[in-house]
């Protein structure tokens, strides 16, 4: 129901008043210094933090992988002993899946979705900040434990009974469980933000069929997060209870009716959607880059959107294909084979639509598009080996071998990291105002592409020839030495590529070409504001009349009438995005940081003693009460630094009033 009686569309004559921008700057900026860094609730700050932090974890995980490759490069090597190697492969997998892949996609969403929607911030700014801090705590927990040589060593999936109290004594697996809890809270927080933003804060005129593909990808992913994360939180939570002294539940203890297979079901019910949670945002990057660099509207928009939605649904029906070697019923296995093959269809539709857009457009081969072409070459290969793995008979041979390692690196690196690098090259100008070097970018790409294939292609062969996973060494007579050496050389090339990338970033930040608002001539809204965007995003909130506003819209009206003294955005209706009501967003606050310490401390304490949970919960509730009680007015801590309300006779209002209706 729209309230057209409340809207007045009229002509606005006059330059956009400078006072408006300065006032908005005052209202939306954060305080200076370290305090400002701690209390900020600006989605661009938090988004950048997620991206940088997650990328640092990517480097850590990559370093662990390089060390693993050094150990495996020749048979019976003694570079890493079993304890270190087992910790390294566990922490490598855990880092990449929980601390890098999901958070970086989330970070990209938190930064870009509000801008693409034409609004100023996420709907719950303080909760967003809290999400980042608790994620950071989880990551710190994991790496501190690794440095103290008590890193988890039961695999990133921590199967029971190996990870249970009897076979994994000590605190290693407990640290793993609580790290999961902390990072999954952050993921759930991000999902709630994005769904609410996409439902309620779209620009006026952005009906469902005008939502950018990137935003569709993010909202579909967020729904998957909502339904998948509870499963891993439950699995790791009851595992922690099985292990905790004086709690000692028997969920997974076969001697008391517990069931080791139940753990696998709970884990993989999360685990399979997890990989789509990582992959689907990457499809958002690909769609965006393909459209921009083909210089034409995306072909098959409806097909692409339906593919995303069906991938999400089908993705929840595949998990048993990780368990084909366990004693599950044959009939059930057949169903999961069918579903696992079925999911190739929406993925195929996406590939076909992207290739069609490129081949019927005028492709310009800048670095972002190069990464996307690399993505197609590698992800399709990985997807095809995935079809092989969908077959129970084939899976029984190659399950838990390096064939699977090859498969998932092709779909995860090829399918998510390549688009991610493309996204970095594409949006770096928006984040920093400067372009990354094209020359270094091409070098970066080719080194990564070649290094990646050298590393992971031989693993297909190794798996077929019997090399199982998670082994810290192998014997000479196996004959696996040559291909392993090749893989290690490839890893070295990949490392070189990452160094080139980092060089590109550090050099370009200082001396890259100035980008301007829209260096790529892209169609979506984030390119309609400055690079980097001011804290308030857009000077006036935009409206849209098409799916590619910066290409097709002519003189779309802008929104006026939102408060200049409060952080206000516009809520719109769900289907047609008509204006509905004004909504005040939270200001900067220390409470998210305090809650992260309280809740995070509670879970970290639970590694050692079960009482940490009720005590931590009470403390967290206290912090939440204060958070709520202090409300949204600038308070003692921030007085004197905060915004000054504007004078009642605001220039822009006067201009409006003077203009005839």
């Amino acid at each position, binding site marked *: 129901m729209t309230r057209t009686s409340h809207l007045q569309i009229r002509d606005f004559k006059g330059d956009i008043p400078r006072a408006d921008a300065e006032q908005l700057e005052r209202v939306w900026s954060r305080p200076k210094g370290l305090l400002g860094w701690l209390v900020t609730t600006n989605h661009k700050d938090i988004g950048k933090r997620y991206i940088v932090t997650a990328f640092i974890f990517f480097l850590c995980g990559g370093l662990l992988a390089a060390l693993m490759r050094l150990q495996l490069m020749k048979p019976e090597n003694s570079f890493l002993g*079993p304890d270190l190697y087992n910790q390294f492969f566990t922490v490598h997998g855990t880092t990449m899946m929980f601390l890098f892949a999901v958070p970086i996609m989330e970070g990209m969403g938190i930064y870009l979705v509000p801008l693409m929607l034409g609004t100023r911030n996420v709907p719950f700014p303080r909760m967003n900040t809290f999400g980042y801090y608790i994620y950071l705590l989880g990551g710190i927990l994991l790496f501190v434990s690794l440095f103290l040589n008590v890193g988890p060593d039961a695999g990133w999936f921590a199967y029971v*009974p*190996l990870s249970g109290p009897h076979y994994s004594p000590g605190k290693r697996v407990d640290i793993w469980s609580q790290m999961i809890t902390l990072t999954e809270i952050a993921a759930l927080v991000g999902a709630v933000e994005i769904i609410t933003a996409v439902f309620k804060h779209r620009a006026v005129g952005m009906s469902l069929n005008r939502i950018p593909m990137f935003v569709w990808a993010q909202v579909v992913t967020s729904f998957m997060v909502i339904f998948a994360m509870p499963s891993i939180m439950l699995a790791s939570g009851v595992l922690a209870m099985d292990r905790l002294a004086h709690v000692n539940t028997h969920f997974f203890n076969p001697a008391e009716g517990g069931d080791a297979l139940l753990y696998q079901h709970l884990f993989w019910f999360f685990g399979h959607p997890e990989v789509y949670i990582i992959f689907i945002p990457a499809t958002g990057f690909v769609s965006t880059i393909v459209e921009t660099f083909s210089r034409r509207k995306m072909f098959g928009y409806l097909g692409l959107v339906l593919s995303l939605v069906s991938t999400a649904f089908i993705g929840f029906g595949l998990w048993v294909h990780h368990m084909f070697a366990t004693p599950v019923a044959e009939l059930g296995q057949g169903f999961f084979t069918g579903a696992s093959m079925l999911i190739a269809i929406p993925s195929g539709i996406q590939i076909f639509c992207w290739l069609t857009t490129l081949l019927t457009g*005028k492709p310009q081969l800048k670095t972002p598009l190069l990464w996307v*072409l690399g993505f197609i070459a590698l992800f*399709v290969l990985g997807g095809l080996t995935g*079809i092989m793995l969908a*077959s129970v008979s084939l899976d029984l041979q190659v399950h838990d071998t390096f064939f699977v390692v090859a498969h998932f690196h092709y779909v995860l690196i090829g399918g998510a990291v390549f688009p991610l690098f493309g996204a970095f090259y594409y949006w770096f100008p928006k984040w920093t105002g400067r372009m990354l070097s094209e020359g270094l970018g091409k070098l970066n790409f080719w080194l990564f592409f070649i290094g990646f294939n050298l590393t992971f292609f031989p693993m297909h062969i190794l798996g077929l020839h019997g090399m199982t996973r998670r082994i810290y060494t192998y*014997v000479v007579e196996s004959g696996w030495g*040559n291909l392993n050496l090749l893989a290690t050389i490839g890893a070295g090339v990949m490392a070189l590529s990452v160094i080139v990338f980092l060089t590109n970033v550090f050099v370009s930040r200082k001396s890259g070409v100035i980008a301007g608002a829209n260096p790529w001539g892209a169609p979506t809204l984030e390119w309609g504001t400055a690079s980097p965007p001011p804290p308030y995003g857009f000077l006036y909130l935009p409206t849209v009349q098409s799916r590619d506003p910066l290409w097709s819209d002519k003189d779309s009206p802008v929104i006026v009438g939102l408060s200049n003294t409060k952080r206000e955005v516009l809520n719109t209706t769900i289907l047609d995005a008509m204006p509905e009501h004004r909504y005040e967003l939270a200001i900067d606050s220390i409470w998210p940081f305090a809650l992260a310490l309280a809740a995070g401390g509670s879970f970290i304490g639970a590694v050692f003693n079960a009482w940490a949970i009720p005590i931590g919960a009470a403390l967290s509730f206290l912090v939440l009460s204060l958070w709520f009680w202090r409300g949204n007015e600038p308070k003692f801590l921030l007085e004197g630094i905060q915004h000054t309300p504007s004078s009642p006779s605001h220039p822009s209002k006067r201009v409006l009033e003077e203009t005839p209706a």
Partner: protein
Amino acid sequence: MQNRTGTSLTLNFRLLLCIPIMALTGCSGMQSALNPAGAQAGRISGLWWLFFFVLTSVYVLVLIFTIAVFFRRHRSSLPLAPELPHPPRERRAQTIVGSAVGVTVIILFVFLFAEFATGHSLQEQPEPGALQIKVTGRQWWWEVQYQDPTPSRMVTTANEIHVPVGRSVQFQLQSPDVIHSFWAPNFHGKKDLIPGHPTTLTFKATTPGTFRGQCAEYCGFQHAHMRFVIVAESTNDFQTWLEQQRQPGREPGDETEKKGKEVFMSASCVMCHTIQGTPARATVGPDLTHLGSRPFLGAGTIPNNLGHLGGWVLDPQSIKPGVHMPQNNLSPGDLRALIAYLESLK
């Protein structure tokens, strides 16, 4: 699909493909899913090649279209003006994409039926006269027990399995500690040994030879060193081996071996190991009754000879750290006698 006469063109082509692969991997066909020596692995291998050739063709097609983008590129550095889509071209593109999706669906159905056919044949119940072997996975070795209606005729050994060619073998798989996975790629896919969920695996060897198997589910510290040997041999050879395994431990032949047996009985060895026909009957560790006849020690970790056995007995932790066997502080004389005795247990 699968042609065993070796005269078909596809089979020759596959062998041709195998040669560079084998060369790269050092001709290690004894632990390879692509070197089937059994009926089940043979069927899986046939399915593999069907998938491989069809999917490779699909991949090449996608690559061609991807590379075509390179050739259609515009070289200007500034962004070109975005163009409006051309309706007739859009309709043509829709037809092509629609057809591609249709072809994809057809290929997937072909694969689905091929998989169901293969899977169904793999799930067939074993013949009534199948050989029954109970395999218990432990951290980090394989306990193998040949079943027999008469309990006294059961044979217990470790890390080594012999099977007769041409006869179905049914493995009863179980684990008392953590999850392991039994995998002999030349014969069949793998099966997980999950505490609380005993299960079975059946295959039939068709080609004689010596092959390798390995634990394929991460089971802790020394998962990497949990291997076994699997020998497929003629029925006669198999019966000879089984009979020999049924015999109690060979009596010591000379003074050294006699001393060695005394060392065994008085040291901590008897706390964990069995030698049939002697008072040593503990079942914590592997059965050593015919240790001398086994090719490896420590579940495929080191070759079985005097030198290695001496090192293993003295300090297994330095060879396989974390293994459940403690160090044994024996004098050189005692050690020499002990390993002479153990190696004599053929």
